[in-house]
């Protein structure tokens, strides 16, 4: 109680020490320093991307009419989690370009169009898309921004993902910790030398990731 009064008095004195700001100036005063957010309730260590609970889908506008949506089916990755300081965590992920799946079959039921898209993405010379995180900042208790190097079609460029953290839970069947995230970005395919169909397909590619990781 006494300490409370002393603290209040100190604050009052501190308020008097400098010329009191006008109400408007007070409103415009710089925001408080960035908040620190709690760690993650899961052990630090290596987590493997759960290939059964991941989707990497992408959409690209077609003729200004609708987004053409497709996905990659074969994705793997490793998350090195620092639970106390999540921003020190690191992610490596790999996508098999030939696993691209548009859902569109030709008249004979063959995935001919998927093969054309894979070729447009440079699958022959560069069968893997890779992502290696370089920095992670937190923007809220469950949100963050992850920057990393994306290699696609043999070209490496930095990309920034907006990340959401759904939470950590103990997987009921595997009895391991599981972590869940979403991630989004928009990248320009021309930055990676992917320009096929650019007469009627937009340059911006929206990427949406939903992913779970399992403790190793």
């Amino acid at each position, binding site marked *: 109680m006494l300490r409370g009064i002393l603290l209040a008095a100190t604050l009052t004195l501190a308020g008097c020490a400098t010329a009191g700001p006008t109400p408007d100036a007070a409103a415009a005063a710089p925001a408080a320093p960035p908040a620190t957010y709690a760690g993650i309730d899961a052990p630090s260590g290596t987590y493997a991307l759960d290939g*059964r609970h991941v989707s990497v889908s992408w959409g690209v506008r077609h*003729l200004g009419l609708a987004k053409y949506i497709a996905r990659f089916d074969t994705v793997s990755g490793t998350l090195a989690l620092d639970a106390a300081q999540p921003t020190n965590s690191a992610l490596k992920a790999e996508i098999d370009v030939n696993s691209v799946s548009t859902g569109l079959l030709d008249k004979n039921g063959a995935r001919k169009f998927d093969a054309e898209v894979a070729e447009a993405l440079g699958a022959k010379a560069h069968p893997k898309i890779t992502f290696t995180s370089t920095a992670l900042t937190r923007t809220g208790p469950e949100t963050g921004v992850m920057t990393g190097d994306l290699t696609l079609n043999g070209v490496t460029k930095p990309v920034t993902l907006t990340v959401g953290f759904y939470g950590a839970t103990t997987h009921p069947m595997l009895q391991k910790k599981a972590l*869940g995230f979403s991630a989004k970005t928009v990248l320009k395919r021309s930055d990676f030398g992917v320009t096929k169909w650019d007469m009627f397909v937009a340059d911006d590619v929206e990427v949406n990731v939903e992913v779970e990781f399992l403790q190793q």
Partner: protein
Amino acid sequence: MNRLFCAGALALLLAACGPPPPRPGAPPPPAAAVAAPVKVDAPTGAYTLDKTHASLTWRVNHMGLSQYTARFTRFDAQLSFDATDPSKSTLTATVDPTSVETDYPGADKDFDKELLEPNFFNAKTFPAITFTSTAIALTGANAATVTGDLEMLGVKKPVTLQVTFNGSKNPHPFAQVPALGFSAIGVVKRSEFGMTHLIGGVGDEVEVLIQAEFLQTTPAIQ
């Protein structure tokens, strides 16, 4: 899309400039009218889904950890489009549940097949999921809500889709007929249709994400 967006923003700005400020004590102004629909460069008539440029994705929460994402790849839709009053348009759609694709990577099971069993889509007994619009309300220059009856697992319930009109092409450069493009999102509570299996670990609310291009119906397209 940018042009549409600008048109929408411009309409909003103009609307903001429109009425004079109300006098004190005056009755409150009527609710703001919906922005005038954007111009559509496609005539009234029958349109058929361009199945090569359409997607039907669904997402459902998995253990609170992610939005499990899958899709149907065989579906069709017919749009009776009213260019003068788009709210008078009607839409019917049908989905083949056996076209569900989860892209499950494990060799341990065929998860797509599991989803066709009686616990889930019960596809042998109910070989089609259908949607028939019942009301369309314009909510913005290029936005509308489309309410309709969704029939799944023998249960018919109303579902509302939030639809965005993305644009039109007249003619479509390849099909050489007028074309319309839409995006739509909706939420279906699967328990309302009797699909309650694994609710808890797997969410009840299923997000539905649609991208669809339509081509004016011609004998070749139909």
